[in-house]
């Protein structure tokens, strides 16, 4: 009998300690893996900055409101460098969940690492609020515990681009396509070609080039010789810089110029100055967009880091933070299963407008086309979210 009562007492003490632990929760620990070094590091910086800004904004309010505790709890980050290695990213995610026991997770940098983390999320049923990363395969993942806020999914994005060209068919009757031999540009190409064909826009030249290319001038001379109305470059940031420099060098002056990734990078504007005028790129955001706090986010970011946010990575990272925050507030608890349910079904207000998920994909935000106009990236397509009219023909290089 004595034994039994001490067992009861023991159970009582243990459960009391546990409830004390919940009651005493003074921090929401948010974990993520980040490419602080290695090949992804230059591109990942905008994401890291936006995470930090979001954390600061949340903690200024006193933290995230958790209904079951009836108070705001400050958030803190637990993050490790994955050195741009997918293997390491996978290990970091496992460590965050099993050893650091974080409350919630944000996404790592880029599609490859994000996709590698998906099985971990599913295995431990741990929700990860992804930020950067985009591929048509997002919707085929069939995952339940991850959500990608990007609307730059290749099929929708290339359709938006072709719709824009079709609306300007009087000036753009044919295009030349250059593409980088990497997964994402290739995925885009796969949808661009049929869409162009359907729209009756002729492809006069199609050429590829590898990562780390050091010279494009001979290739660009070939493009110039064909004299296309539009040039579509499915590139990443580094080769976008090289392309832009050398397009000017060889005097390639199409009426429409689209560069997939790069023109939205922070260094692009300062480097090319007035030569950016009329260059289009993919995207889904501009500080001038008519969304709550879009300009506010831009200004706070500039004030904190003394540079402009990346219109893709930084924005997606901040959105992921907002979605995480609102999911916790709407759920009222940190229980992963309940969090998953809220994230999958509810709508969230972000600096990019309302977001909701169909499976893992954000279907609510449309794919957009941005264009440099007077030192700003403006949204020029689709008309319902556009901040200004498209500038076609693009002015010649200065």
């Amino acid at each position, binding site marked *: 009998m004595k034994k039994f009562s001490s067992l009861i007492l023991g159970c009582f003490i243990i459960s009391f300690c546990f409830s004390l632990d919940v009651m005493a929760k003074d921090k929401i620990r948010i974990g993520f893996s980040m490419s602080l*070094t*290695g090949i992804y590091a*230059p591109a*990942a910086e905008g994401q890291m900055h936006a995470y930090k800004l979001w954390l600061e904004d949340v903690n200024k309010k006193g933290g995230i409101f958790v209904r079951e505790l009836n108070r705001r709890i400050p958030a803190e980050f637990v993050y490790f460098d994955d050195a741009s290695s997918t293997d390491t990213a996978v290990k970091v995610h496992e460590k965050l969940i099993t050893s650091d026991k974080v409350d919630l997770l944000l996404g790592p940098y880029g599609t490859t690492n994000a996709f590698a983390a998906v099985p971990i999320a599913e295995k431990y049923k741990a929700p990860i609020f992804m930020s950067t990363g985009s591929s048509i395969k997002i919707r085929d993942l069939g995952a339940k515990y991850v959500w990608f806020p990007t609307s730059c999914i290749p099929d929708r994005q290339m359709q938006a681009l072709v719709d824009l060209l079709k609306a300007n068919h009087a000036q753009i009757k044919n295009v030349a396509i250059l593409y980088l031999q990497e997964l994402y540009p290739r995925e885009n190409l796969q949808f661009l070609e049929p869409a162009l064909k359907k729209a009756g826009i002729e492809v006069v030249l199609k050429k590829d080039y590898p990562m780390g290319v050091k010279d494009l001038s*001979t290739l660009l001379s070939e493009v110039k010789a064909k004299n296309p109305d539009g040039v579509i470059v499915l590139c990443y940031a*580094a080769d976008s*810089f090289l392309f832009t420099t050398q397009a000017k*060098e060889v005097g390639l002056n199409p009426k429409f110029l689209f560069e997939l990734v790069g023109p939205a990078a922070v260094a692009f504007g300062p*480097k090319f100055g007035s030569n950016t005028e009329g260059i289009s790129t993919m995207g889904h955001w501009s500080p001038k967009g008519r969304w709550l706090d879009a300009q506010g986010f831009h200004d706070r970011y500039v004030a904190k880091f003394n540079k402009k946010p990346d219109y893709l990575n930084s924005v997606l990272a901040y959105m992921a933070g907002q979605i995480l925050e609102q999911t916790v507030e709407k759920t009222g608890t940190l229980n992963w299963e309940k969090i998953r349910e809220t994230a999958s079904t509810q709508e969230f207000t972000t600096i990019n407008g309302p977001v909701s998920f169909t499976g893992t994909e954000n279907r609510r935000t449309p794919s957009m086309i941005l264009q440099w106009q007077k030192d700003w990236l403006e949204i020029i397509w689709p008309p319902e979210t556009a901040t200004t009219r498209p500038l076609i023909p693009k002015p010649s290089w200065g």
Partner: protein
Amino acid sequence: MEERVLQLIFVGLIIGSTYSLIAVGLNLIYGTMRLLNIAHGELIMVGAYTTFWLFTLMGISPLFSLFLSGLASALLGAMIGQLIFLPAIRKTKSVVVLESNSLLIFFALSIIFQNVASLLWSADIRGYSYLTQIVKIGGVPLMLNRLTAFITALIISVVCYLLLQRTMLGKAIRALIQDREATQLVGINTKRIYLFSFTISFAMAGLAGCLISMFYEITPFMGLPYTITAFIVIVLGGLGNIMGSLIGGFLLGLVETIGISLTSPGLRSIISYGIFIAVILIRPKGIFGRGV
């Protein structure tokens, strides 16, 4: 058609001139000390950042900061040589052990340089615009900064060649490359030559970084591809053969550019590594063999 051929040759020579500059620097350390500097690319990065900051913060022309970034890298070289490698050379008796140890040290240095740069200046892509006017040579449009980089690289390479061929110091370096023990026997201060080669090699990487920054983007992790290319060039021209590296750089630049234009840019790596493997299989001493 003629214009196109001319363009290919120009582009090949321009790219080749940077390859030469980088490879000569790398080969100098290998030739004299049998040390493989896999952190060579990181010094290029340091040179590029020095130029970038001097230009953006103080408006100093990259052509002037050429001297400053060369000097900064040279100092870094002298310091690393004096503090790390001279003691290592003194303590290690076998060349084989020295080679493997130095590889580890340089690998560590490469990681340290990359990450310190990333901490100091963030991993952001950087770039600046300088001499972006277009000049036409034989009907081929070229951006002035690339032309300037080409001419500067050529001048530096020639100066380096003359230094090695015409001065006593150069003769001592060449002697050391040929036979370390015999050099010591005739009374040449090898320690001093080691340090000197280190300093010149680092300075050349810094200069190359300065020139490259005029037209390519800059990141803390930009160095590795240049190190790899430099390895291909020094194998092509012969390990320890400085003149070989000089010509090898131009040769690789031309073969790459023409090869790409005849096939596809996608085959660039296959072309350069193909040459690398072919040279190792057919003529392991390099096209120009060993010697100075």
